[in-house]
């Protein structure tokens, strides 16, 4: 298997989908010759032309809505939101339309739409270019939410998302674009809704996804030196969540930390923690601990930014709390 960058794995999935399925089109700002703000679509314009790689004006609600209409009528649009922060402009089309139409129109239409959203902080871009907003969409019935943590999953999950007949929010952790890893060649999909055990342990579980998976593994390494072995569960799909995998790890360890890049309050971790509380209470030896960004906007200056983001130190402190 060739090694490649996370960003290249995403491009490979797009490329293969464009080749395999003539109804796939990409839409977004500057995704043509410029290749998108993160270079993900570089080269695709040259290969597929402007009818497949559709550059849009800066009109997020509009072009997401156009993609919804196109998805209802035979196309499979894959939309790039340049920075996830801008997705809020399209919240109406995603939540009130894309996610609901199949249900409220009683199955008469489908909305096979993928919305790619680079997310996360750590680059000093400031409060309007650094958010993880997946929590904002977690309650939206009819929407799926996916977030890969490895190049292989980036390719396989995106390929699966594009073939899914539902609207899928595909979160790309900016911090991982430069990560490298082995990626299966050719047609490769990873099923939505299935978590991945990124590391096996028996003493505690770190449940996380996306850019926090490497953080969790780093902390697990340190914990291991102290004699504690951690399961690291990479959720991969946030909605619908793999409850079976959740239960399995909790049943094994009885002690959990939920870790995410986004803010603590109202985060993905709240849902994970609540599910565990509901379903696995008897297995719990300690209260589920959350580690996340602080409840602040993301400041721009690097030291300030780091002060609000989750860290290995915060994880270790949470692990301590589990064994108090």
């Amino acid at each position, binding site marked *: 298997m060739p090694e490649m960058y996370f960003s290249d794995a995403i491009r490979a999935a797009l490329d293969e989908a464009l080749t395999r399925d003539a109804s796939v089109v990409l839409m977004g700002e500057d995704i043509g010759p410029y290749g998108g703000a993160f270079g993900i679509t570089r080269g695709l314009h040259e290969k597929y032309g402007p009818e497949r790689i*559709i550059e*849009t004006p800066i009109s997020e609600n*509009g072009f997401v809505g*156009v993609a*919804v209409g196109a998805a209802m009528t035979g196309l499979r649009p894959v939309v790039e939101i340049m920075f996830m922060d801008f997705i809020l402009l399209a919240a109406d089309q995603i939540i*009130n339309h894309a996610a609901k139409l*199949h249900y409220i*129109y009683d199955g*008469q239409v489908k909305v096979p739409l993928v919305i790619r959203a680079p997310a996360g902080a750590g680059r000093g871009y400031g409060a309007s270019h650094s958010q993880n907003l997946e929590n904002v969409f977690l309650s939206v019935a009819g929407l799926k939410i996916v977030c890969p943590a490895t190049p292989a999953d980036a390719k396989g999950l995106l390929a699966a998302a594009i073939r899914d007949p539902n609207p899928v929010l595909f979160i790309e952790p900016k911090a991982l674009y430069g990560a490298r890893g082995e990626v299966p060649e050719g047609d490769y999909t990873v099923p939505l809704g299935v978590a991945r055990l990124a590391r096996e342990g028996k003493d505690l579980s770190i449940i996380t996804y996306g850019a926090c998976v490497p953080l969790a593994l780093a902390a697990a390494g340190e914990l291991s030196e102290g004699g504690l072995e951690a399961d690291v569960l990479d959720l991969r799909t946030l909605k619908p969540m793999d409850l079976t995998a959740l239960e399995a790890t909790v049943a094994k360890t009885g002690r959990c930390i939920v870790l995410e890049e986004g803010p603590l309050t109202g985060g993905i971790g709240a849902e994970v923690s609540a599910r565990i509380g509901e379903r696995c209470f008897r297995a719990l030896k300690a209260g589920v601990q959350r580690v996340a960004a602080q409840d602040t906007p993301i400041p721009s200056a690097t030291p300030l930014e780091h002060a609000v983001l989750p860290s290995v130190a915060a994880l270790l402190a949470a692990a301590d709390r589990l064994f108090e």
Partner: protein
Amino acid sequence: MPEERLLSAYRKMLLIRLMEERIGALFTEGAIAGTCHLCIGQEAVAVGVAEALELGDEVVSCHRGHGHLLAMGGEPARLLGELMGRQIGYCRGRGGSQHLSAPGIGLLGTNGITGGGIPIATGAALSAHLLRTGAAIVCFFGDGATNQGVFHESLNMAALWSLPVLYVCENNRYAMSEPVCRTVAGGDILARPRAYGISAECVDGMDVEAVEAAARRALAPLRAGKGPAFIEAATYRFCGHSKSDKLLYRTREEEAKWRERDPLTLTRLKLEKAGWKETLPWIEEEVRRQIAEAEEACRRSPLTPPETALQGVYADA
């Protein structure tokens, strides 16, 4: 319009009028819950545009969509069934008055978010354009919707990409209680599409023949790949915005003036002049029977079982 077509247009308008009146009555009786926005007074717009459409064309409508559905050939029993939560309903009662869908007859969907259908229609036109289906897409909305940002975003894209979409603005002078003069700066709705280079025309929305002619004029270049078009249909809603509206924001005089231009009366007069006077009562009787039968069919249809509400949130692969 040839006389036979005008007759059938009249029949459709009458069906819409009498259905809307019946729906209003059922609502008052409590047989229909929720809310509904009737299109009484605006029938000529729906029917005039629908008359200009071809098989395969598709319509996206707004919150005031019963007329558009019926003009496209929707079944009264299935419309009523939708409002009454019956199995026969177009969406078995899931959608309700504001969220109808009947893709089988070219009605992609109606929409409870003002302006929400405009990019969706534009996207359907993108499909038609890229998949070379040859279809034209029609998008209905009101004057108030032209103040939504997404209206502008959508028209801009449709024009940039030469998409086959006809935007039909039913300017009934009010968005709920707010008159156009207080919501549309400059007062000129046509200036908006024109700012994007979209050819736009205002038409008498009470005259079904004029509407049909305008729609044909707009659709011809559109079908030939010349990009989107825009029609402003000057019309009036005779009823309240929704069933709870007390109509405090407009005068009875204004209403009476517009009632003089009732699209049904205007068409009836034309048909009478053309020698169809005898036929008209017969048509009305037929439409009334059709509605009565629809209501019966609807009432015969079982209520949608509550447990189905938990199904179908996601589409299966």
